[in-house]
């Protein structure tokens, strides 16, 4: 058990620190530090341009896509070095939101399933932020039940013709490439008729329509496919193997989302030091302290759990379903922390105008963004199922769609619904 940096780790840390202080966009630091959960606009210039500049600089300096091999634009670093980098990068990491899905999920999927040529062509541009990727998985009819998707890909010569619709696709509007799961066979059980592709988002027949979210932003989109042609060379894995390929993506999603989840604790602790209540400063109010303590052990518990998985990873163990706890705990905690902070503000807590609200309306924004955390990338209920079944060994849910050909599975329509 050793929590301190080894000499090599300490050397890596100071190298990272020096490089950041020489190269980071310092003029953005104040704005970035104030940003609430889910925001990426530091308020100075075009956020996407700032993000791309920082990513490119990092890649040139050998600090981007840290764990990827060098030949694919990465830095060949270890899991622990990546954690050290993250703690040093601090607020600047908030610039990287647009690249999370590409670096965290699409890239690793391409790395596992792509040809050597694809990898050499695409991955370095992903690592440098020149190309943005999105994940075209969920559909109106199938989110949790991802294997129930209906977007069709039909073979035609050495191409596939895609028709259908995706939804909730984060960043589709800004994306250059997409990772697409489609149905290639409706006559077999649902998991067996899927195939994975990647495609140029500028392909004819792709139409992206932003969806306004409940918090007023529009980061996710609908994506329509009308006779979109994808070369067979852009298929990942065999025809019918799409589910297995998707599991690579989802496993990496769990690692990249769950490993470094914000929980709102640090923000709340700082805020409790500032705000006055009828008992003086909030931090001196025993009720506040008790709530803070409960949040504190969740925050540290998650952080140290991440360190435990990294230690396991560095011993060569595979990341397992245990990592599902990160997002499960953080999601409801963000929601709870934000409600508590608003309660401390009393009726004033209603105000979400950043110029009027205390602390930049940080907690109001957290309140309005946190419901998504409990849904995206595996809902709370799905994560609990995963823990119960895959960690604790409890029986799988009883499924009425098991071993039934996809086109015979009951739907709302076949049940007489809408």
């Amino acid at each position: 058990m050793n929590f301190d940096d080894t000499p090599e780790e300490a050397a890596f840390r100071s190298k990272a620190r020096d490089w950041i202080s020489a190269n980071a966009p310092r003029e953005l630091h104040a704005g970035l530090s104030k940003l609430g959960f889910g925001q990426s606009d530091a308020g100075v210039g075009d956020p996407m341009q700032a993000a791309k500049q920082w990513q490119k600089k990092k890649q040139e300096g050998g600090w981007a896509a840290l764990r990827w091999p060098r030949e694919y634009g990465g830095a060949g670093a270890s899991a622990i070095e990546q954690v050290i980098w993250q703690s040093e990068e601090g607020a600047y990491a908030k610039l990287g939101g647009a690249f999370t899905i590409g670096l965290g999920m699409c890239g690793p999927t391409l790395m596992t399933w792509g040809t050597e040529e694809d990898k050499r062509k695409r991955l370095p541009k992903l690592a440098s932020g020149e190309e943005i990727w999105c994940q075209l998985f969920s559909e109106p009819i199938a989110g949790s039940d991802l294997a129930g998707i209906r977007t069709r890909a039909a073979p035609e010569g050495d191409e596939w013709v895609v028709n259908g619709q995706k939804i909730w696709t984060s960043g589709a509007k800004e994306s250059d490439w997409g990772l697409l799961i489609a149905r290639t066979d409706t006559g077999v059980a649902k998991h067996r008729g899927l195939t994975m592709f990647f495609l140029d988002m500028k392909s004819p027949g792709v139409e992206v329509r932003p969806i306004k979210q409940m918090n007023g932003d529009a980061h996710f989109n609908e994506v329509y496919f009308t006779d979109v042609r994808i070369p067979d060379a852009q298929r990942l894995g065999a025809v019918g193997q799409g589910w297995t390929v998707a599991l690579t993506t989802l496993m990496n999603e769990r690692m990249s989302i769950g490993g470094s989840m914000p929980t709102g604790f640090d923000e709340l602790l700082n805020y409790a030091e500032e705000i006055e209540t009828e008992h003086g400063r909030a931090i001196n109010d025993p009720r506040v302290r008790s709530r803070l303590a409960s949040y504190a052990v969740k925050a540290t518990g998650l952080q140290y759990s991440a360190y435990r998985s990294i230690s396991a990873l560095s011993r060569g163990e595979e990341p397992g379903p245990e990592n599902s706890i990160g997002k499960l705990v953080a999601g409801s905690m963000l929601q709870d922390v934000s409600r508590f902070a608003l309660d401390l503000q009393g009726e004033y807590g209603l105000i979400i105008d950043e110029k009027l609200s205390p602390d930049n309306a940080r907690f109001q924004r957290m309140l309005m963004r946190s419901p998504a955390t409990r849904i995206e990338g595996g809902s709370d209920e799905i994560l609990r199922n995963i823990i119960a079944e895959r960690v604790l060994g409890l029986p799988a849910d009883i499924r009425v769609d098991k071993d039934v050909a996809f086109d015979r599975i009951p739907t709302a329509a076949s049940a007489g619904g809408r």
Partner: protein
Amino acid sequence: MQFDFSSEQKELQTSVRRFFTDNSPNSAARGVLESTAGHDESLWKKVGEQGFLAAAIPEAQGGVGAGYLELCVVAQEAGRALAALPTVSSIYQAAEFLMAVGTPEQQAKWLPRLASGEAIGTVAVTEAAGPLNPKAITTRVTNQRLTGTKLPVADGSAADFAIVAAKDEHSGISLFIAELAADGVERTPVETVDPSRKHARLDFDGAVVEPLGAPGEGLALIERIRDRAAVLTAFEQIGGAQAALDMARDYALQRFAFGRQIGSFQAIKHMLADMYVSLELARSNAYYGAWALSVDSDRLPAAAASARVAATQAYQLCAANNIQVHGGMGFTWEFDCHLHYRRSNYLALALGGPSHWEERLIESVRVNPALKAA
């Protein structure tokens, strides 16, 4: 960074687990619970022979001198096995007080015997309901003689000596060692929620005592030692929580209702998943506490409080939900669910209750805001 126990420590864990499985089945804890025995004497003797609980006591003092990480490993297994032993009083506290501030004579007299299990020490602080504070202590020492009442004192009937917090002549709170077989000491068993770890009332009427540590430093010392004991106790708690979760999981796989295993109902699955999450958060906090204890880190107060708050939550949740999963069977005397329910609530209050540790956590986080490891 290597945030896990070493392979040697994991081997130790395997052998300690085997030892407790063979020598401390749940029926042994139940035996103590249902009798007037203070603790499981035959188990205590064997543990003493193995030197398991002497892991952190230096060899020169009759211990094994392995270290605190090893002791954490043992504590976790003791908790898992519901071991009916005076661990919290004799090992996690009395021995720690002596190592911290005992004179060479006091150490030589007691530490080897605590290490071997020949002697049992305890700590007598509480006198009244409510949190620990100077006003709550009325026991008094004049001319080396102690008068007053302590209640409840863990292992008070079995212990050879108690470390007693009392007012001294200068009205500060100081610590004293009282031998409990001496004149002027009366011990009466007290019924508590967990009779597998017995408690007593100690009435002192002019009993001869000797000072331990500097005068007036009693409460500060108690806090300091409790930080250390909190980490070790947290490991007992996560061991117990794991055992309760395992029991619940096994029963959910075996019990049928509505033609299926109850473990196939989502309400049960999700309850068990939440128990697992709570336990893993507690385990990670306890690991951090173990590290802080083993290197004497200045982050120990925050680490200990985090370990303690999280472990108490996890054990209480797992023990309560274990009964829920078992249905009516869980509420019977015959089933072992109540052993964990009792133990979880005893351990929650030993060393001061959850709200005390929440308070301490926030205080130490404010002093040392670097919750982060690096």
